[in-house]
């Protein structure tokens, strides 16, 4: 299979008769090469190059200063058990008869729609950039830089993600993922407050949701 020295094979017949028999300088490398290919196959099949992907998270360091966010720019999302997602705009109205809590889910037509609607400013600013990048007028690094600037602008939506005691980790990851998809860079991950938990239980009771 794998003879290394080819060529020079013919034409020696007459000389060999006269001289003492020479040992061939060629070694049969077939077994070695077979083994080589076996190892190659093994390593190729067992190696996985793909590393798992990660979502980077930098939770806020606990401080006492509470930054006030403009009501019109704040969206609070409360993640609860059973994949339920509650949200309200601005400040929570603690009136049991007319609070501003709504229920949705984590599907494409659920919370994403809400966020995209509220995040109009950023999306509007990003649209021309996207177009420029598609027509190759903008390098990736320049695009990222401009995108970051837009996302950090003071008109960008601020999403407050809250969790109650029965929230599942998978929902938190899905929510953080939505932040990525909807180009929201300003978000915080904190615990739901007591009035909020009261309001969502109230909401569940009123609408017969389990």
């Amino acid at each position, binding site marked *: *299979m*794998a*003879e*290394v020295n*080819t*060529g020079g*094979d*013919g034409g020696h017949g007459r000389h060999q008769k006269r001289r003492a028999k020479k040992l061939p300088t060629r070694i049969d*490398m077939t077994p070695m*090469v077979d083994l*080589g*290919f076996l*190892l*190659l196959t093994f*390593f*190729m099949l*067992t*190696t996985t190059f793909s*590393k*798992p*992907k*990660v*979502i*980077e*998270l*930098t*939770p806020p*360091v*606990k401080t006492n200063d509470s930054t006030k966010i403009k009501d019109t720019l704040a969206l609070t999302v409360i*993640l609860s058990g059973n994949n339920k997602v509650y949200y309200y705009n601005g400040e929570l109205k603690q009136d049991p008869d007319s609070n501003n809590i709504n229920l949705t889910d984590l599907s494409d037509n659920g919370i994403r729609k809400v966020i995209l609607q509220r995040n109009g400013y950023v999306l509007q600013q990003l649209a021309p950039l996207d177009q420029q990048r598609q027509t190759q007028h903008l390098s990736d690094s320049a695009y990222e830089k401009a995108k970051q600037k837009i996302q950090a602008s003071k008109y960008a939506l601020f999403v407050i993600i809250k*969790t109650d*005691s*029965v*929230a*599942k*980790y*998978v*929902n*938190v*990851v*899905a929510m*953080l*993922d939505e932040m*990525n*998809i909807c180009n929201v860079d300003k978000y915080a991950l904190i*615990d739901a407050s007591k009035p909020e938990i009261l309001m969502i239980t109230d909401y569940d009771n009123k609408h017969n949701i389990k």
Partner: protein
Amino acid sequence: MPKVKLPRSSPSIDMTPMVDLAFLLVTFFMLTTKFRPEEAVSVTIPFSVSQTKLPDNVTTVSIDSAGRVFYDMDGKDTRIELIQKISDNFSAQLGGKLSGDDIMRFAVMGAFGVPYSQLKQYIESNEEQRKAMNTQSKGIPIDSLPHDELADWVQYGYNLALSDWYDKKDKNAQVTPPRFAIKADGNAKYEVVKKVIDICQKAGIQHFDLITSMKMKKN
């Protein structure tokens, strides 16, 4: 008139270049392959669309669906230092200091999730026994009562990884700073994950990498 010689081609082909290439590939795959130790705990990680890859030099805390916590750290040298520190400071809980042999075994061990009281036994067990211990164990304690053991592991581990990085980064620019990854099961309660994050924040860790797998595009 000279005879017209037809060039006689030898029936065997010169395979030297192919074999060379094959062995080159073998060498490459052999050197790049890192055998992964068997997972101590089975975790179904959630999906995301994130494109960021998991960095090197990472400490991983795994949380399974029942909320059990497992700890793992990259780097053999830092692992040796870590277990020595733990062995020195918590010998009473461990039931005596660990032997040099135990320390070497810990250095090459994968993730583990046993409290101090069972650690010695776990290190000295073989694969089968470890598997049994992993299924029975309740994970590393994260409650401050009686003792928050995860905080010790995280604190000492992170400090050692940091100082190791400081030592190495001047000589080798490719050494990355230590990162902290959380590999939690999708069905784990977020409360447990939050508790782990809190413990790590107290140890001075600010950035976390939540391990996810790529979402398949829906058609």
